[in-house]
């Protein structure tokens, strides 16, 4: 075990999988010569050559469509899309192409590609570079969506994603890349897609969170602990498929829930979490689930405005107190 930054953990996962399987290749804007604007792919072109690590033109729609069919025909492409805000550009490839073929073509093809991107606010990147559009992708049948928070999960889930037989959209967060923590160096270290992770155990209320909001939820749990409230924090990690059992088990214990997601509230991922709980744990609930999300408006640029709209530990703790009131 070594301590690695989140970005380095991703780099290690890519390197190991490329060493293991010659059909894994990478493409995306600025990923080869420069090593990626978030430095995730540094050194890989030098190690694996220009055929397997490619800089691309700015043509997201086509690149994504190419990943789908490249994956259908013998390779395992890993495509980097620089910002999650550009997901609309790749959505036809996901929703009208990747989503349908395995089922519609009666299992004649599989599409083992990974689409990595990063989203989220907090860096002053403005309304076109700060969104969390995870729900747009999580809505699509046949596509897996993961959002690891720890460097270990980053590595283990990226390796799992590359080995997966289905398309996986791999969501990073711009404020996570410098997070440093222990990462197993075993080359078969895999974190299974579809399993949530209990971050903090608790008995009074369940906080289900995604991506960077897991860190805010952890801080919220500390705030709540000061009030004597034992919050359980669950990192969902896999947005689709979602670990329903983990949700049900936690609520069966706590009878209260807060769901936290950095996307917009209306029709956002947190809405599905609330609805899932409605469907599967209503009888265990003692109070309505609280949603903590971005409000329904574009992410503003100026620091005090951006800080006002982003969900954070204080807002999560408040929501928990409200649920318990």
């Amino acid at each position, binding site marked *: 075990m070594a301590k690695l930054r989140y970005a380095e953990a991703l780099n290690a996962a890519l390197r190991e999988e490329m060493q293991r399987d010659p*059909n894994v*290749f990478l*493409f995306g804007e600025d990923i080869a010569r420069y090593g990626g604007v978030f430095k995730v792919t540094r050194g890989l072109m030098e190690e694996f050559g220009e*055929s*397997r690590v*490619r800089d*691309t*033109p700015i*043509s997201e*729609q*086509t*690149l994504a*469509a*190419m*990943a*789908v*069919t*490249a*994956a*259908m*025909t*013998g*390779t395992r*492409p890993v495509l980097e899309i620089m910002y999650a805000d550009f997901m609309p550009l790749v959505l*036809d*490839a996901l929703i*009208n*192409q990747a*989503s*349908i*073929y*395995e*089922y*519609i*073509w*009666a299992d*004649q*093809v599989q599409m083992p590609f990974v689409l990595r991107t990063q989203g989220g606010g907090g860096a002053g990147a403005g309304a076109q570079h700060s969104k969390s559009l995870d729900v747009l992708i999580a809505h699509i*049948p*046949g596509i897996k969506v993961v959002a690891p928070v720890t460097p270990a999960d980053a590595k283990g889930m990226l390796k799992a994603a590359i080995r997966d037989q*289905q398309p996986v959209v791999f969501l990073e967060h711009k404020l996570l890349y410098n997070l440093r923590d222990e990462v197993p160096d075993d080359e078969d270290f895999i974190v299974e*897609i*579809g*399993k949530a992770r209990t971050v903090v155990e608790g008995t009074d209320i369940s906080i289900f969170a995604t991506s960077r909001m897991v860190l805010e939820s952890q801080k919220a749990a500390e705030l709540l602990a000061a009030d004597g409230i034992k919050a359980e924090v669950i990192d969902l990690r*896999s947005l*689709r*498929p*979602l*670990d*329903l*059992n983990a949700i049900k088990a936690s609520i069966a214990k706590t009878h209260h829930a807060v769901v936290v997601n950095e996307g917009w509230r209306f029709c956002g991922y947190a809405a599905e979490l609330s609805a899932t709980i409605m469907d599967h744990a209503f009888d265990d609930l003692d109070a309505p689930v609280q949603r903590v999300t971005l409000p329904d408006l574009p992410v503003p640029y100026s620091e005090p405005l951006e800080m006002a709209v982003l969900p954070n530990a204080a807002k999560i703790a408040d929501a928990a107190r409200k649920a318990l009131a």
Partner: protein
Amino acid sequence: MKNGPSIDEQLEMYRRMIITRRLEEQLGDLHKAGKTRGPIHRCDGQEAVGIAATAMLSDSDYITSTHRGHAHYVGKGLDVYKILAEILGRETGYCKGRAGHMLVADASRGMIGGNAIVGASIPAATGMALSIQVQGRKDVAMCFFGDGAAQTGIAHESMNIASLWKLPVVFILEHNQFGLTVHHSVQSVVSDLSIRGAGYNIPSEIVDGNDAVAVYRAVSTAVDRARRGEGPTLIEAKTYRIEGFSTSDMGGYQLDEDIKAWKARDPIKVSFDALKAEVGEDKLAAIDEAATAVVAAAVERALADPYPTFELHPASAAYSEAR
């Protein structure tokens, strides 16, 4: 004959054009009889493009098709009975009835596949060509797309990338004069769209799309070039859609004189005229008869086939527990 095709190859192309034409005619009838669902996009009059452009490919080469793919399917060696069964929504179709007429695929023959998002066949083949190149294979990928599809952004992006990386892909633009009901002149001021190849440094050629031999030769050169690792070619095949956009098309926008003029240059007739001196009319008539019988039998058999029954697809499920 330089670059082929041999007489035998020409006869096989002739046979496949007949298969396709009979398929289209049968589908027209089945539609009228209420036995198909959704609009069917017939390719009567443009068979030479799909049949001849695929004639030199092998099963490990890939093609991607459009909403108007029947000639491409038949050209790539698919079985007309299983095509029909799919179009009729039967369990015995290529995709168990799940895909329908616009999305037929047969992965074993590299036909993956029909695509009803206009333009999507273009990056699809480009991605396959990338995959071939990364694997160091000698295969090629080919896409068919229409004059309407040429106006999509992905056409531009794909050609730029294919040229940049010298990908083994062949772009076949089937210029049939219309995108849905709209004449090409209302979609672009440029009527010879192959001029755009120059914008990517892609060699391009205009070919008579109703002459199977001409299509075969031009495409063979492009396919060989791609196999040699020299990159993509753009071929613009000029042709015409005799039966309109689809079976639900109300018509009225194609000029009678155009239809007449193009019918006079029907690709099957063009091939017939070229071949009759070589093999005699009887041989051609026999081919026609046999092909017609194959399609008729396929229709009958497919119509008798069972419908599928619905089951959930665990790989599409939203919760890990359901997988």
